[in-house]
């Protein structure tokens, strides 16, 4: 892992699909980029998804080439397992402090061979699988992780030393300490992504206590071929579900939990998951309870119709309550919207809450930009310059600015990179490496003409 240099052209905060896209577009224009990711791997939420809508392409098959490209680009320095602690205006650029968390593994020596993970005696719930699966106290984050390096979770370590003995390259470095490094950059792109509304917000839906009420991201992992169970099973007892209910707007368009906006992707990811469940379990019945279906994007309406054609049942109704029965089945109390407002109860093996999107990060204490009332980064010129924030030279991309789907996040990341490049040219910021050398060459060529 190279040291953090004194100067870069751009800092990109967050290594999900939007951050990778912004970093790649800047680096392709010759700018030196520092890409900081708080997790031990880049890839963000997208690398954990099963398939993308409406094409049903494998999500990681799209995401991992982009991850590899970002990791191997000569003008992008990846700084994973690190957090940006402070960004301050400093002349034409910004002074940045980055906290580098200890992996307790020398990244230059680690082969990502898993030998340490195989001998570690501790299994703990794996964050990547939303707790449904296990990982070891020392682990490579997931099969597609980049960098594909081990990290020691010291909170769960029993200090047995087996990992160190199993390592073929002597990569363990238990003396590593958290380090705060300072650098200077000419521009900043914030691409800190999303989390979903917490399960415990909706008490009437079980408040996160019912094992067979899943978040949509947990269902993504269950449907993934490298998911925690290798197939879709009920977490409470391992049964192959026969009836599955989807509760739409279970964390959006809901003033009672402070999320009044539409999260824009829930209808489509629910339809995608429902359709795939029909493919994966031959006799499963899937019912979506929704106020309406918002299929706004290219090919989305056609996808909705396909899902209905292939047997996904859509019911216009609002789920008021979810209760657990003795056998851990789930009883949904539904107010029908389409049939004179009558109340019905339906029983399901498994329920998925179509939770909304909220910001995964807040600027408070890190950088002096404004956030909007909904907590996303404020974009004062949303129509003409959607990546502009309230601070000159600081731009935003992806869900950090508001809920959006993957194509929109990628388009916006390109716009943010272009705006950041314009800012660098305006301020004539140079990182002092490749770009500066190019600029010097240009000046040398021009000088004789002036003489």
């Amino acid at each position, binding site marked *: 892992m190279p040291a953090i240099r004194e100067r870069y052209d751009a800092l990109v905060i967050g290594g999900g699909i939007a951050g990778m896209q912004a970093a790649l577009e800047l680096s392709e224009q010759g700018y030196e980029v520092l890409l900081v990711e708080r997790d031990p791997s880049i890839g963000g939420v997208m690398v954990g998804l099963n398939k993308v809508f409406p094409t049903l392409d494998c999500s990681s098959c799209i995401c991992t080439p982009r991850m590899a490209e970002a990791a191997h680009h000569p003008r992008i320095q990846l700084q994973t397992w690190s957090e940006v602690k402070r960004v301050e205006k400093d002349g034409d650029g910004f002074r940045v402090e980055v906290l580098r968390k200890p992996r307790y593994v020398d990244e230059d020596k680690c082969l990502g061979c898993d030998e340490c993970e195989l001998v570690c005696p501790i299994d703990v719930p794996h964050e990547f699988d939303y707790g449904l699966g296990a990982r070891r106290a020392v682990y490579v984050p997931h099969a597609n992780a980049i960098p594909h390096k081990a990290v020691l979770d010291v909170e769960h370590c029993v200090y047995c030393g087996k990992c160190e003995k199993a390592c073929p390259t002597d990569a363990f470095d238990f003396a590593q300490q958290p380090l705060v490094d300072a650098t200077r950059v000419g521009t900043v792109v914030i691409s800190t992504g999303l989390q979903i509304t917490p399960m415990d917000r909706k008490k009437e839906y079980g408040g996160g206590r019912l094992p067979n009420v899943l978040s949509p991201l947990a269902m993504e992992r269950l449907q993934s071929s490298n998911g925690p169970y290798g197939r879709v099973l009920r977490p409470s007892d*391992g*049964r192959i579900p026969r009836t599955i209910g989807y509760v739409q707007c279970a964390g959006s368009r809901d003033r009672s939990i402070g999320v009044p906006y539409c999260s824009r992707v829930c209808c489509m990811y629910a339809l995608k998951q429902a359709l795939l469940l029909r493919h994966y379990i031959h006799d499963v019945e899937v019912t979506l309870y929704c106020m309406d279906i918002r299929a706004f994007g290219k090919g989305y309406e056609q996808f909705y119709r396909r899902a209905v054609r292939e047997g996904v049942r859509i019911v216009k109704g609002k789920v008021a309550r979810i209760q657990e029965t003795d056998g851990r089945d789930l009883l949904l109390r539904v107010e029908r919207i389409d049939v004179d407002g009558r109340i019905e109860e339906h029983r399901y093996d498994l329920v998925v809450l179509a939770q909304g999107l909220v910001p995964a990060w807040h600027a408070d204490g890190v950088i002096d930009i404004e956030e909007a009332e909904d907590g996303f980064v404020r974009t004062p010129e949303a129509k003409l310059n959607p990546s502009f924030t309230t601070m000159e030279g600081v731009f935003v991309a992806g869900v950090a600015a508001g809920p959006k789907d993957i194509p929109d996040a990628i388009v916006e990341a390109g716009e943010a990179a272009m705006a950041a490049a314009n800012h660098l040219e305006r301020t004539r910021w140079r990182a002092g490496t490749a770009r500066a050398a190019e600029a010097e060459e240009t000046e040398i060529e021009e000088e004789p003409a002036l003489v």
Partner: protein
Amino acid sequence: MAEAVAAKTGPAKSALAALRESRGGVSAAMKAWLKDQQDVRKKLRASLAAGARSVPDLAAECGLEPGRVLWHLMAMRRYGEVAEAGEKDRYVLYALKKG
């Protein structure tokens, strides 16, 4: 050879010991977690030694909550100790891997 091994483990061991000391040793919670994991795995291995079982079968035989059984079984599956061995009545059967 012995010197090479000592050279390999010596300094790293002291760094590990220093890390352990700096973090106040192994917490009581982690000791309890590890003991529970070992107890559950012992029961599951004993039941699976008699043949393939579903999660409810294992839960009943081992006196464990089915959700816990599934989580531990999936951990064993991930690290190569257990594999699927068919289906019965909407439940997957799991068996110890040979060798």
